[in-house]
């Protein structure tokens, strides 16, 4: 049963990956990417890693690819992208690096020094040891995250918040709101041509790159 499921979803994952590369339409590519990500979530389930599977679906399929599609939809996909490579060495370099990564994965599949975990060739870890024996997957992750590495986790969270706040501060400069708008009220729907009415001419010139950076 597990083997059958693995092969079915391995085919789906590979098919999705091919679809991402071969689709001419970026939205189709994004959809194929969703298929690959969901298939990988099934692999996690087959490995009894249900929390990672849920996170895979919520974060990758539910948020990141949604963001991709958002950007693609807003930038417009009707423009035909030229397939000419602006950087000539890029394609051979990509093939060489891809081959290197593949070799690396094949090599690492037989060794455990990189991660310290048991490999596909070693015996699977049964039920954990010591204090973790009675815990399920979620409880073990929670134990590691909120007890063993509490400070590292909190500091990382703080770092991410600072990064987000910093991005907002950089992207949004005060005193440039359209006329008649209350300070602090987001007006995404007014981002049409009329939104520049309250701006000084010199600021309008730098408006464009900042908007792209925020996207």
């Amino acid at each position, binding site marked *: 049963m597990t083997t059958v499921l693995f092969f079915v979803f391995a085919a789906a994952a590979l098919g999705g990956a091919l679809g991402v590369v071969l689709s001419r339409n970026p939205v189709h590519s994004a959809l194929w990417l*969703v298929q690959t990500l969901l298939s990988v979530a099934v692999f996690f389930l087959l490995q009894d890693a249900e929390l990672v599977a849920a996170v895979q*679906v919520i974060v990758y399929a539910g948020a990141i690819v949604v963001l991709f599609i958002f950007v693609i939809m807003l930038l417009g996909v009707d423009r035909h992208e030229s397939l000419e490579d602006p950087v000539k060495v890029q394609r051979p370099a990509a093939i060489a690096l891809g081959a290197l990564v593949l070799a690396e994965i094949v090599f690492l599949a037989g060794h455990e020094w990189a991660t310290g975990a048991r490999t596909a060739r070693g015996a699977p870890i049964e039920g954990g040891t010591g204090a973790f024996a009675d815990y399920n997957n979620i409880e073990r992750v929670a134990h590691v995250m909120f007890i063993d590495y509490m400070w590292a986790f909190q500091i990382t969270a703080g770092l991410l918040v600072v990064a987000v706040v910093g991005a907002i501060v950089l992207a949004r400069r005060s005193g440039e709101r359209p006329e008649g708008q209350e300070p602090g009220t987001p007006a995404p729907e007014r981002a049409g041509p009329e939104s520049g009415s309250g701006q000084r001419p010199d600021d309008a010139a730098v408006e464009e790159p900042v908007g792209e950076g925020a996207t």
Partner: protein
Amino acid sequence: MSALLGSDPLLIGDIDFTVVVIVIVKTVLVFALLLVAVMFYIWFMRKVIADMQNRIGPQRAGPFGILQTLADGIKLFFKEQSEPATADKRVFRLAPYLSILPAFLAFAIVPIGGVVTIGDHRTQLQLADPPIGVLFLLAMSGIGLYGVMLAGWSSGSKYPLLGAVRASAQLLSYEAAMGLAIVAVLIQSGTLSTREIVDGQAWDGLGSIIGRGDTHWFLVPTIVSFVIFLIAAMAETNHPPFDLVEAEQELVGGFHTEYTGIRFAIFFLAEFMNLITMCAIAVTLFLGGPSGPSLTGLGIDAGSWLNVWVMPVVWFMVKLLVLLYATVWVRASLPRLRYDQLMNLGWKLLIEIAFVWAMITAVLKVAQDVGAGAIDIIITAACALVGGFVILGILYLCIPKREEVEEIK
């Protein structure tokens, strides 16, 4: 594989032919239950709204117009399906199914009744009980977004695209508030599995309702989260007053403007299925799911089929009906929000309150676990308040004033 199967006693041990049949029957029953529930909910909603507006409402099809939804469904089924010339055909056809599939799947984790015995198999009256439980709901509402987004994009015209962008922004914003509201319940229950959450709220006398007794409903300890969950759930399901995704004055029909016939019906169905699922989840998380008094007081044996099969399902349905009735009141009485009001409510009010309430719940839970008295809690809370204000004050002093910013420029 055990990750998929969860704690259902049916799926532990050998899986023979009977088990497979039971699972298939359960799947079909849950699907039929959702379809029939949508049918009756739409009729019920139209009747109640008609009452509130001094009208009669549907009355032609069947007794009291109860078959009105069926008639509408048959009509939609036989209507011509049009596809805009500019549409992306494949995605256009795929989108409705991406919308309805998560709506159905999310209901699979809802415990409808207790643990029953069929033949010599014991099984839970719920389709699936994965250990990730509630996270599965969040995953499915994330996937459900694709149906709306792709429907709007693939239609190849402006209004659906604008509707889809609005819908995605709305769903993403309110998912945060909903997730934080659920956190408070998870702190109380200590588990993600819906079956264990319901078991933690088992009936223990009338005190269960108000938070007394060994096991009690999570309603009173997490009452603020309950309110936030209901508001966020309505926003997630595009229920009025959050239906600006399909605001007719601004967007024609929103993301499904170009859809006709059965494909439109599927979107419609998915929306109501989502609403029913959300209310069912609210019942599970806050109102104890199938927990309620059994008939042992009337002299009926605790092992009788009435107590094992019927009463839990009846209690679940009663609670679900109460919540669904409340959504109809909201639908009939509140005007639609403006886009900026929607975003302000979500980001500046609900998320903050849900977050603070989750932290308060956590503190009270820890205090309860270590056996702290009321005075300890008050002192700790006072210290936390003072500390919080000090940190906020320092941050406030660090922010440059508006005049200073002007000077720098």
